[in-house]
């Protein structure tokens, strides 16, 4: 029995393995995917009800409302990211795994994005239509959400890892993650608004893409470090 066994899992296998497990879990509990989506639609519906049915105002506030609602929905889904692993002891098992925790954390974040960010991107056109958004703008909205939710999943994983197992975790998670998420919100929402006003989208999209790459490169390490600390 040696450590260098032929069957030892590779990094990529580890990454895919943990992501697949979380996707399978989500598949068995569809509520975990659907609830944030319902929340997204409801928050988006709150604004027209509060502002009034004026078409002009809705068109004007559409990008902002959709982005704020998406941000809040992501936040809602983050709470449970590491909670069940922490509670049932799976996190202990992952911490003593041969696969580096950074890889496992990245796999979990990817699965989180696939089960919360991507569905948001896919349902956003329906909600956007109710704000009288033209199709060309909806395309940009989906693109900004696609890039932005990747960053949010990654940043949010750090926050979720830092607050897992703490009392009052939900409120704390918001306090920790929201300030970090401001750049994504600003660029995501303003880019859509600029396009709606007839300007170009390139600058904002480049920023969102660059930011997603940056966050992807450091967030898994921070998440892994945070998980180690939280599980002590």
């Amino acid at each position, binding site marked *: 029995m040696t450590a260098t066994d032929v069957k030892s899992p590779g990094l990529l296998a580890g990454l895919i393995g943990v992501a697949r497990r979380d996707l399978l879990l989500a598949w068995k509990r569809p509520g975990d995917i659907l609830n944030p989506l319902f929340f997204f639609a409801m928050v988006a519906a709150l604004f027209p009800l509060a502002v009034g049915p004026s078409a002009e105002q809705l068109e004007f506030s559409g990008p902002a409302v959709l982005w704020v609602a998406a941000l809040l929905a992501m936040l809602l889904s983050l709470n449970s990211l590491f909670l069940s692993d922490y509670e049932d*002891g799976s996190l202990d098992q992952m911490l003593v795994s041969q696969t580096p925790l950074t890889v496992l954390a990245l796999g979990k974040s990817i699965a989180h994005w696939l089960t919360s960010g991507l569905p948001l991107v896919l349902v956003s056109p329906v909600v956007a239509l109710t704000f009288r958004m033209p199709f060309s703008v909806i395309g940009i909205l989906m693109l900004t959400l696609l890039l932005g939710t990747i960053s949010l999943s990654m940043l949010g994983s750090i926050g979720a890892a830092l607050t897992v197992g703490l009392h009052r975790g939900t409120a704390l998670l918001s306090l920790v993650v929201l300030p970090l998420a401001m750049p994504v919100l600003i660029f995501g929402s303003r880019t859509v608004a600029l396009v709606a006003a007839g300007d170009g989208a390139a600058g904002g999209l480049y920023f969102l893409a660059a930011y997603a790459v940056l966050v992807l490169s450091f967030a898994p390490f921070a998440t892994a470090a945070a998980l180690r600390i939280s599980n002590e």
Partner: protein
Amino acid sequence: MLSGTDLSLLRGDCCLFTDLSFALNSGELLLLEGRNGSGKTSLMRALAGLIEFESGDLHWDGVAVRKNRQAFHASLVWMAHRVGFKADLTLVENLNFEAVLRPQSDVDFDALLDRLGISRLQRLPMRSLSAGQQRRVALARMSLADSPLWMMDEPFTNLDREGRALVMKLVDEHLGDGGMCIMAVHQDVEVDKTVQRIQL
């Protein structure tokens, strides 16, 4: 070989132990004994690398664990208090995930489940298994892993007499194959292998 020198551990404000030293060779069993709250689980978690020792060195095969965590974790399988299975996944799905975490041996899967008396439960979600049955699945995890070092925290909890005998039988076989085992217990355990004891 796992060896610790002058280990000490703090939890919160209280000092659990200081200057603890031991050496565990292949074929040996190390028992951690002590009453509830004496720090068995904390020591176990620290040995597994989940919490840091306040001072002292832990070496695996002559290399400091701190410097080569991945190799150490590849040689380690751990049976914790909480079994670490997902309640929504079936028994087989849970055990399949083990391949992501650590190298797997070529033990006959079905024969092993048969021996542990859980082969009927394969397609059931983990949540419908009793606590004792879940402990048996955790035992299957130990045997499936190709890891020389077994760490078991209170392995007899929730198990019936037959199950407890099975734990000792599996540990015996593992030690016979040149493996090592660290076990935290609060009752006397009869093993005919080399036994070291640490009283906490």
